[in-house]
């Protein structure tokens, strides 16, 4: 009697006209230890379905706070980098200018010193001039 019922349900099942409750009946029938031999071939189907329902999503449910956090950090990092490059460059330029200034100053000082030496030597010429004047005046 029960087997008869199951067979009918199976037929309906394959025509997709069973209700969820009827399908549950089938499910429980096929989860028994003993199943009529000619129905044995359907057993994998039902045990597979009930097995498939056991599968779980085991990963943590990820919610977003971290994501935003990273975004802002990257924005900050980019800002720091641009400022760094900009001001770094400026600083570098300033340093270079200072160096160039010091070098030129040194060069000018060298020049001035040598000029000084030159004028010292020229000062002797003055002696000649004085002597010459004396000679002319005595005439």
């Amino acid at each position, binding site marked *: 009697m029960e087997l008869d019922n199951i067979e009918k349900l199976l037929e309906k*099942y*394959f*025509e*997709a*006209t069973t209700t*969820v409750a009827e*399908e*549950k009946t089938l499910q429980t029938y096929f989860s028994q230890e003993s199943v009529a031999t000619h129905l*044995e*071939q*359907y*057993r*994998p*189907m039902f*045990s*597979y*379905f009930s*097995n*498939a*329902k056991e*599968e*779980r*999503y085991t*990963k943590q*449910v*990820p*919610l*977003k706070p971290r994501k935003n956090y990273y975004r802002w950090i990257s924005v900050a990092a980019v800002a720091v980098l641009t400022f760094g490059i900009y001001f770094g460059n400026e600083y570098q330029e300033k340093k270079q200018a200072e160096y160039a200034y010091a070098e030129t100053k040194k060069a000018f000082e060298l020049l001035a010193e040598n000029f000084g030496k030159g004028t010292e030597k020229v000062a002797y010429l003055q002696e000649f001039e004085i002597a010459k004047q004396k000679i002319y005046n005595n005439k």
Partner: protein
Amino acid sequence: MKQAEFLNVVMPFKDKLFRLAKRLLVSREEAEDATQEILLKLWSKNEAMEEYKNVEAFAMTMTKNFCLDRLKSKQASNLKLVHSNYEDEKTSLQRQLETEDSIVWMERIMEELPEQQKMVLQLRDVEQYEFEEICELLDMKPTAVRVTLSRARKTVREELTKKHNYGIG
């Protein structure tokens, strides 16, 4: 909606999302990624969530669309899917030789089904949704759902019978 509230809403059906994703994408990693993506999307919409009548149905539809998109883009690039399928088949073949596990057989039969049939079978025989819900989720007419479901079940039966006969012969 606060985080705890959101989790309370989402927890009861997150496994269903995952199982649907896995049914369609086959690979476990892919399905996990998809589920994560869907949950994040839901969370970003959590302001509007209170307005949805049925968050679960909404999430299931999202999952379906997301996975079908993934499959499409993969077919276009034609790379990853082939790879994961190959891997899956290999392990299942091995196990099948070792234990003749009928569950593995079923898994392979299910993998061969067209997507629409996979989804209907998953929603009905695994998750036990009512027909009206399936219609809503998959955006199908009731008759179409019935026909698809019947076809899917018959295909599975046919494949199983084949296997059963091989087993005897």
